């Protein structure tokens, strides 16, 4: 599924969060959204998920204008916020089951996917534990497992690398995300960690004060940057200097 922003603007209380954003993300890519706090990263994700309504412009999915009643489009994407909504009294396994049913991904074979994911994320011993008794990182892992088991075409993730997951969890997430991208899934995630984004994305989207400052592959960005080793850091330094 490709995602296209056409001149999307969005403001909160008169303060612009997105300012005429135009962007096209093709399937099978891992795209990191980078930007300072309040740059508009989460708003961009919210617009794709239909939680925020653009003031101007529109989001197009597979060339079709996105509206909240386009359930055929909405069921093909999953949004995992920084604090996933899961039922605190229900076990991890039951929460995964509820998400699978919502995404109509509970057919034959779902149980094998769930077991494999629970193993990969070191969550099998905790699969019957109520979500409310887990740590933040474990809760995020449970949300990730539910999303990965549902296997939607678009993964929207808000700060997955600052979610409290342990290094093993982060590693498992990267492996599964890369695997999903090779299967044609689109992964769009926001992050503040420049070094991670540099190593774990096919394209980098740098956003600042609601405007896209750069959207390209790392190789192209390296070509343009003076400092080839720290291309994103250099980009951010330029941004700050231009603001000052």
């Amino acid at each position: 599924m490709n995602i296209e922003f056409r001149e999307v603007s969005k403001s909160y209380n008169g303060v612009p969060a997105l300012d005429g954003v135009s962007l096209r993300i093709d399937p099978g890519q891992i795209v990191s959204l980078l930007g300072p706090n309040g740059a508009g990263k989460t708003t961009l994700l919210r617009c794709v998920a239909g939680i925020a309504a653009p003031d101007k412009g529109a989001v197009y999915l597979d060339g079709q204008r996105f509206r909240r009643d386009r359930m055929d489009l909405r069921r093909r994407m999953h949004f995992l916020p920084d604090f996933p909504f899961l039922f605190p009294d229900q076990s991890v396994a039951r929460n995964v089951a509820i998400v699978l049913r919502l995404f109509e991904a509970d057919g034959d074979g779902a149980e094998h996917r769930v077991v494999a994911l629970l193993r990969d994320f070191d969550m099998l011993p905790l699969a019957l534990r109520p979500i409310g008794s887990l740590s933040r990182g474990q809760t995020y892992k449970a949300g990730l497992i539910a999303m990965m088991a549902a296997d939607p075409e678009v993964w929207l993730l808000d700060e997955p690398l600052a979610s409290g997951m342990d290094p093993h969890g982060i590693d498992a997430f990267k492996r599964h995300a890369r695997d999903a991208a090779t299967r044609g899934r689109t992964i769009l995630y926001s992050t503040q960690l420049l070094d991670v984004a540099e190593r774990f994305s096919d394209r980098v989207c740098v956003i600042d004060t609601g405007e896209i400052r750069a959207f390209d592959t790392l190789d192209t960005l390296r070509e343009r940057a003076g400092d080839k080793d720290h291309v994103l850091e250099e980009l951010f330094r330029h941004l700050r200097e231009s603001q000052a």
Partner: protein
Amino acid sequence: MKLHSPDFEKKLRRGIKEAVRSSPAPRKKRGRKRPRQYNLERLLGRPLIAAAVGGAVWHAVDVTGHPPTGLAVMTLWAFGWIFLRAQGLLTTLFSANDLFALVLLPIADLEVFRWQVSKFCRASLMSLADLVLGLGVLALYVGLPGVKWLALAPIAVLAWALMLAWSMLLAARCPGLPYSLISSAFVLAGAAVVVLNQSLGPPVMAFIDRHAVALSLVLPPGWVSSQFLVLTDPRYRPAIWLLVPACLVLLTARDSLVRLQSGYRPTEAIDDAVSDVVPDEEPSAPIDAAPDTPLRVEPAAIEELILSRRFFAPVSPARRDWFEERLHRWSTAREKALADFAFPDGFAIVAPWARIFRSLAIGIAVAFLLSTLVPSVGAWMLGLALVVVCLQAFGQFFANGTAFEEMSFGGVKVHAYAAYGIGFRELTHFLVKCSLVQLPLVVVCLTGCSLAAARLTQWPAATALRLGLKASAFALALRFLVLVISFSSGTNDTASIRRAAAVLGLALLSGGAFLALAGAAWYVTHPVAWLFGPLAVLEAYLFLRVYGALYNRMRFDLMPVPRP
């Protein structure tokens, strides 16, 4: 360390201003015009309560012509308020949300205590406005001379301080009292009088009027506010002596705070280890066999459970009786998935309704038993029972499960359904189905309530039956409106003037039409009035559809507006 230092705040503000002035980018940002922000709830919520108190006082003196009756209404309100604030003080001190953050800071417990008490006092400040308004209304009614108006301010302030002192005294001396239950009873009784004003209003007002002076003098909050009577009528001059016990109670405030503060140790709550959630039939294999350790299941057994697909079913599902079975058969596969999401343990119908009918039966039996002994008490009991039963019935009939539960999402609260891409139409369809399946039970319950009230008020049974059926139709219409409110509460559909004008205009138009139709159906006795009931249902349904269209066309966000 101080929790709040005005000097530090002043210095910080000055520093920020200087930094903004010396740097062009923030100066430019600051110069941008922002539309005026407003928060309707905060702006109107509390003043509306004050207005309601003033209105109730005015209504009481207007109906009875006796200022002491108005004062008694105010005293009754203040009496209920004391319990509410005692609960508020205990909550602020021991279970407020910010305590969890405060205990992590390097602040002495005493500082935290003082901060929480000051918060409690600030939160109670608006009730001073209630008192001022209530006394002002009374003074206006009796035409109090200009000079005596000056005395109202100290009376109101002293009465407010007395109410605070009583709250502190109760919280310190009797922390175990069921305050929320007591204050809820006051709120329910007040709501019952307002809703059933035609039948309950006159006897209640007559009772208050008969015992007005006694209520104001006997109930503690009236000790100070009854000084108003001293101002207006020399016969009440002895009431000035009530200031003595009032001052004594005021003096206890310090002792109450000392008592609350002694041993005040807000600590971080640490949950006990919990057991695995194991399906009933699952043979559990605890790793640790010690009696107090939580149950743990071996990974091999967990894997087996998942591979057998038993994790798709609720662990302890609600029993599926006749009504639940009807709903299950009527639901599409998608609606079954939504049911799993909104009601993870299953949607129970028969068991909660059995409890509701049991409450109704007990309430009616007790009321009729009491009415043979003291008729007025029996009527009160029945009124209270019917209010409780109706609240229970509507709670069950309008149940939304967890669909509209709020979740934290990048600094804003978003409803759970929105985070999972669940559509407006499919969710409303499912929830309306849940209500429609219960409609026969609502009809039986409301008709039963109506017949019970008729038995006591000597209405003809046919009238009671008609009213029960009409009330059921309104309950169905309200279902649609409740759904709109549920969706709307998680959006910013009224955040900007333009949107507010559209949505509120639509709501006012629709609400006006609904009230007109419902009122016509309720009061008009002509047979054609039967048509108005279904029309009211249809009107409410159309409102839901129009709101749904705005929702789907993305006219607003599914979250409140983040504060800049």
